[in-house]
């Protein structure tokens, strides 16, 4: 630490200030102390002089009264033995020198005899209790303390012999003489010197102690700074300067600059980072959106596929059911057909050959009619599941529809049904069995008219073609099909109509025909609004449309 010149500077400065302070303090205290001591010494000295002169005045009273010089010397001896006393002078009341122990005339000549005489005899003086006045004469070398020697010379009345405190002029003392105690100032000077010496020693000690303390304090004060500087040096960020504080200041300012740079960098980095985070967040959001869309799409597809699967499954079941029912029905029809034909032939024979009463003839005719009906029914049943016996050919779709509309025209008019048609030009001909196609259209038209009320309604027939498929759509504004029935309308014998009017075979026959043509039949309906049946049929073999055999 002390080996480092930079470290010394701060410490030295602190030490210097402290030492200066201690020195000033010491000097001031010493001066104060000396002054106080001198005053006190001087007071003591004067006090001593006064005491001595009082003592002397009292002890020589008798001797002055008797003017006994030997006795005077004896009485003055205790006072003379005081080492400060240079000499003692005793005068009688007239100023005559009774004793002068030191010789020399100057003191007795300077005696303030007259002045004291008057003051000493002043009323209320001396005997009133207070001590008589002491007069001081001072020159460079000595102080002279003058005092009167007072006493009552005689008792004025016999009473005074007996009692004190009677008052009156009798108690006033007279001046017997004067005493002077000459104190040499040498002692005072010596003591003052001794005091100065002692104070100097004490002050020196105080200063030394203060110096040591200052040293310790400065060392302690410099320690943290030194540690700081040391730490800075270790970090290699110390700027060297002529002293520690300067170095610290420079280091500090350089550190501050570096910190500012660092903060600026951090700020920039932070801003860049924020931007990147924003971008990344946006990218993420986009990706998220895409993912969601993809998921939605997927779900949609799954739903579609599931729906398709369900539809296929349903279709399959229906197909199986229908085919089973169809086989049953056709075999039944075959079994019924022959007896019915036999019965009808018999009946016709009877009708022709027998001359019957009109009523009987009517009954027979009725029976024949019923037989025809059964035959027709049976034929229908057979139709349902019959393998296509008739050969398909190119059939004009629109013409088939129109033929069927004309067939129904009379009935529609009666029922006040309006018919709208909307034919697509793209629909031309398809490769199909014409009768069967017509049968399908007729069945759909019949059902539509039956669904419409007596008050009338609208039947709309439209066509469309796409991707080699022709669509024929028959719509009505009738009563509609309840949802629970939708699945069952293609079943054989499913009907909602009375036994007389409905057989429940119409739609099942349609279904069988369309199936055989490799097409589909679909129903859409809403109760109270209407029903739409759509028949989709492939255009047919070869796809390339052959010219109309009818020649256009």
């Amino acid at each position, binding site marked *: 630490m002390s080996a480092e010149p930079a470290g010394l500077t701060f410490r030295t400065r602190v030490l210097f200030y402290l030492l200066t302070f201690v020195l000033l303090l010491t000097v001031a205290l010493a001066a104060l102390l000396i002054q106080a001591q001198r005053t006190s010494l001087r007071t003591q000295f004067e006090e001593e002089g006064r005491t001595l002169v009082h003592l002397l005045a009292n002890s020589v009273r008798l001797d002055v009264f008797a003017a*006994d010089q030997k006795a005077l010397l004896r009485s003055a001896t205790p006072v003379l033995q005081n080492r400060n006393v240079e000499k003692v002078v005793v005068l009688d009341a007239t100023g005559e020198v009774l004793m002068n122990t030191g010789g020399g005339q100057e003191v007795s000549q300077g005696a303030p005899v007259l002045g004291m005489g008057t003051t000493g005899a002043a009323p209320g003086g001396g005997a009133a209790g207070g001590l008589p006045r002491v007069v001081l004469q001072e020159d460079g070398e000595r102080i002279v303390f003058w005092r009167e020697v007072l006493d009552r010379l005689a008792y004025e009345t016999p009473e005074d012999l007996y009692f004190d405190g009677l008052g009156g002029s009798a108690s006033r003392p007279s001046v017997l003489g004067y005493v002077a105690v000459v104190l040499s100032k040498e002692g005072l000077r010596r003591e003052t010197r001794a005091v100065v010496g002692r104070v100097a020693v004490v002050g020196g000690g105080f200063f030394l102690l203060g110096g040591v303390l200052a040293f310790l304090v400065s060392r302690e004060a410099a320690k943290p700074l030194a540690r700081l500087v040391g730490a800075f040096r270790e970090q290699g960020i110390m700027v060297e300067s002529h002293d520690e504080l300067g170095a610290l200041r420079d280091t500090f300012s350089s550190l501050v600059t570096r910190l500012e740079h660092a903060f600026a960098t951090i700020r920039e980095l932070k801003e860049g980072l924020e931007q990147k985070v924003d971008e990344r967040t946006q990218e993420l959001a986009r990706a998220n959106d895409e993912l969601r869309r993809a998921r939605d799409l997927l779900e949609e597809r799954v739903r579609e596929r599931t729906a398709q699967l369900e539809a296929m499954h349903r279709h399959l079941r229906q197909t199986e059911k229908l085919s089973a029912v169809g086989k049953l029905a056709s075999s039944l029809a075959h079994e019924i057909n022959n007896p019915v034909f036999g019965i009808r032939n018999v009946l016709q024979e009877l009708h022709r050959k027998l001359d019957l009463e009109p009523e009987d003839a009517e009954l027979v005719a009725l029976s024949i009619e019923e037989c025809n009906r059964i035959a027709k029914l049976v034929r229908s049943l057979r139709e349902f599941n019959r393998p296509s016996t008739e050969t398909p050919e190119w059939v004009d779709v629109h013409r088939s529809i129109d033929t069927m509309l004309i067939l129904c025209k009379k009935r529609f008019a009666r029922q006040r049904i309006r018919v709208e048609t909307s034919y697509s030009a793209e629909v031309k001909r398809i490769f199909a069995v014409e009768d069967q196609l017509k049968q399908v259209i007729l069945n759909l038209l019949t059902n539509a008219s039956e669904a419409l009320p007596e008050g009338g309604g609208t039947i709309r027939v439209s066509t469309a073609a796409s991707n080699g498929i022709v669509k024929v759509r028959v719509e009505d504004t009738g009563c509609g099909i309840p949802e629970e029935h939708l699945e069952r309308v293609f079943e054989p014998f499913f009907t909602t109509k009375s036994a007389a009017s409905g057989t429940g075979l119409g739609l099942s026959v349609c279904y069988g025909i369309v199936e055989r043509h490799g097409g589909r039949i679909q129903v859409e309906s809403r109760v109270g609004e209407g029903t739409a049946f759509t028949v989709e049929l492939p255009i047919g073999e070869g796809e390339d449309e052959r010219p109309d055999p009818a020649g256009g």
Partner: protein
Amino acid sequence: MRRWWFVILLLVVGSGGVARASEVVIVQSARIRPYEEARQAFREALSRQPAVSGAKTLHPHQFTEFVLTDGGGREAAARFLVSHPVDLILAIGGKALSFADRFRQIPLVYTMVPDAGSRLVFHDRAAGVPFSVPPRRWVEVTERCLPRARRIGVVFSPGETGGFVREARALSRVQGMQIVGTGARSAREVRARLEELRGQIDVLWMLPDLRVLTPQTAEAMLRFSMEERVPVVTFAEKYLRRGAMIALVPDYRRMGEAAAALAERLLRGGSLKTGRREVTRRTRVRVNAGIAKKLGAFLDTAWLGGGD
């Protein structure tokens, strides 16, 4: 004047029926303890013997007191004495006696006055209590208190106390003692006379001698006593405090009581054969035991217990 007053007095006493409280004025020189004691004793004694008029009627005495050293005390006393009918003046102390001496028409009793003769100038019918202690008593007390003392030293002025010393010398010879007296004409000689007495005496008498005794000579005597280890027999308590061993002092209460007796007689109209009449005195012996111990003097204090 005097006869007229007596006529009045006789008339008053003789009438018998006229009752009047006696007006007594006490004039006191200063307020010091001995005077106070005397005055107190006077009042008490006189109150115990109230004025008796012819038919044994009791009347309390009326006391009025003045202290001359009090502010305006002298003037107040004078005013009172001229304006009131006063039956008796008691003067305590020499100055009080000098003051009362001027009122010569009022009967006067004095006490605590050492020099009554020189103070009575106008008044010729004053009665007082003698203050001084006679030589016989000095010899007696010295002999009793200090049985070993044989030689009695005394410094005196022949003019003042010559008679006293002569009488004492005769009395002491009877007791087997000897007075070694040296005459001094002034106080300044006292020291020299004392030097002559060095080694010659066993006890030193300090007499109330105005010529010889000053504060300085008193001190010289006391110093002599100390230096020579010779006890001092003195006449005032104040020297007892300063180093004397035995003091023959008047009993202040007795002084007051004696004055009361005189006053009572005067008030009753008792005639005084002479112009002045004094009653028997009493003295007390006070001893400074500390001094006795220091001096190693043999002191017969047992005798003191018996009273004086």
